[in-house]
């Protein structure tokens, strides 16, 4: 597409780009970032479950990167390479069988959902189990230019820069079963979370080496730095109900944003707050920091490229 576009542009301007290589490639790699706010959210969720009545909390092991798949389409003309890259960031966190037991909130012994199901008929108050799944789906798209001189017939090496946008969403699904006589029916909730604004800019810079065992086949290794930051996260859609989630996060609804909140003068005492900007502003005894998605960090990838010479 890009090559075609450039060919059209060159034709319009009377430039003769030929000969050039039409390129396509696919690569696998790893993106690292600090994602300080998102990690903070995970820690606060862990803290909430630990403090909530009778929960077996889950453990946060760190959310600082993920594998990524990239697809590339472009052209190479002399020492220069132009193209469009699309990345696919998809990550799923799942936590199954998280039990809660309001009957014994101070218990020290870890219990399981199996324990609660086995004792369901004898529970005098309310207990239950929940399954949670969080999924992130983000797609950065960048227009790229790289200086990639051919040092040997089988070797290209150089550096590049890309500029584009990042868009996507995240979802949280929670399924809760309540146990005990007269308990509520199981409930299920799904929250779609989108960045605000919907797209964020992406900058990428890298160094790259491509080994060409054949004129039309190359293996490219890239390493570099990416800068991108989501301004905030907002609930776009809510479907279903959850008594547990509504209790802890005060009935989250579409239009609510995610904040880290602390009482003024107590910066270390942070909690997660989900609400509208107006609701946040109304809480004058608190300082609010909107949860951002800082995905800046290093990346590496290893890919395979195909080149077709256009005469």
């Amino acid at each position, binding site marked *: 597409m890009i090559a075609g576009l450039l060919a059209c542009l060159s034709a319009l301007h009377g430039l003769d780009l030929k000969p050039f290589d039409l390129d396509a490639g696919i690569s696998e790699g790893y993106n690292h970032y600090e994602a300080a706010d998102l990690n903070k959210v995970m820690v606060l969720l862990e803290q909430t479950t630990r*403090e909530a009545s009778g929960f077996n909390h889950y453990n946060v092991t760190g959310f600082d990167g993920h594998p990524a798949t990239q697809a590339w389409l472009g052209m190479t003309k002399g020492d220069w390479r132009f193209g469009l890259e699309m990345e696919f960031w998809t990550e799923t966190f799942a936590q199954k069988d998280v039990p809660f037991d309001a009957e014994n909130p101070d218990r020290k012994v870890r219990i399981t959902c199996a324990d609660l199901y086995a004792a369901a008929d004898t529970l005098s108050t309310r207990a239950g189990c929940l399954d949670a799944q969080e999924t992130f789906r983000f797609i950065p798209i960048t227009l790229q230019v790289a200086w990639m001189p051919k040092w040997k017939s089988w070797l290209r090496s150089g550096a590049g820069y890309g500029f584009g946008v990042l868009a996507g969403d995240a979802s949280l699904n929670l399924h809760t079963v309540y146990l005990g006589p007269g308990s509520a*029916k199981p409930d299920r909730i799904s929250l779609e979370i989108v960045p605000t604004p919907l797209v964020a800019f992406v900058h990428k810079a890298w160094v790259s080496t491509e080994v060409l065992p054949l004129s039309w086949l190359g293996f490219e290794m890239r390493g570099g730095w990416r800068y991108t930051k989501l301004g905030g996260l907002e609930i776009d859609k809510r479907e279903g109900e959850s008594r547990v989630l509504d209790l*802890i996060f005060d009935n989250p609804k579409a239009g609510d944003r995610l904040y880290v909140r602390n009482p003024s003068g*107590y910066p270390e005492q942070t*909690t997660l707050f989900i609400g509208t900007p107006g609701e946040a502003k109304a809480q004058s005894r608190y300082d609010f920091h909107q949860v951002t998605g800082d995905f800046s960090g290093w990346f590496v990838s290893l890919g395979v490229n195909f080149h077709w010479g256009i005469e």
Partner: protein
Amino acid sequence: MRIPALCLVLLGLGGCTRLEPDIIGQAGSGSGVGSDASASPDTVLVATYNLSIGYEVESLIASDLTNDTVAWHQASRILDQYIASRPLGRVRAAAEAIARHCPDLVGLQETENLRVTSGRTDVPTVPFLDSLLSWLAAHPGDCSRRYAVLRSPLNVTGRSLSRSDRPDVAPLGLHFEEGNAILYDAGQWSVTDSSTIMFDDLLRTELLGKLMSSERAVQYGRLVHQRPDGRRFAYQVWNSHLEVLSSTRKNQAAEMQIIMSNRRDWSAGQILLGDLNDSAFSSTLRIFTGNGWSDAWLLDPGSQAGITCCASSGWLNKVTSPTGGKTRRIDYILSQGADTAFSTAIALDSFVTVDSGNVVFPSDHAMVLAKLRFRVKVP
């Protein structure tokens, strides 16, 4: 016969405590914030008492109360518990405890008013505060105080529940209120300012099938103590009940500290009463102690462990041990400007016999008392 016998046993174990009029200990001094050694001293006896509501409500959270039939059954079950807990007897026992110790001020939490407006005639209407005041007025004992109350109703809700599976059953109509209150001796004290300040961080849950906030707020009263010798002392009194959920509780504690700091009158003695729902050296309590508040119990621990809550046998509060199965100290009297606290005590000397024949405390909390000596100048 059972009550005196039990009380004798408890007395032997230090469970039933009666405050003595004399100073029985001066274990330490207050923070000194707001105090003035040259000012005339004023000694006041204050108490905090969570009256508890007498039935378990945890099940309300996880029950489908949007379904009228389910709600009808849940409400009926709770009403049965309520009747069996002898609410009038419990309130009278609480009043007896207050009359026996005769404090100047009492911070009350979980005061309630449950009324059944239709569908059942066997549920007694016992507005806790009105019943408490009536009983105190009619049975003052040796306590010559004329108690009045600063009210702070917070949860107010009502609902009519019909059984869709039994249209022949009359709808059950309910009205519920719950809140905090400050009891004071109107003969020696006057109120110059009062308000109820809601916390920003509140848990919202369903009560009687309606989504509502928990009853957490700071109740504030500025009261002036008029001594018989003509001297006057001003106090800012703060009364609250913090949330059970840890993160919310700590936020509410910080909010309370912010509220108190913003309204601080440096010429007045400071008294904080409440069910703070956390242990003495927890991060919740450190928010207060780190801002100049002194825990009266630590100033004068006395001979008791200070345990105030909660009856392990549930809402019936069985008297099974010197502490009635209570295991935690979560009810506090904090002060600023007091240079001495003495005669701190946990009152475990009032009981009521419920339908099952069990002898129970009026609440699953114990009343905490402390005599505080302030040296504050009043303009």
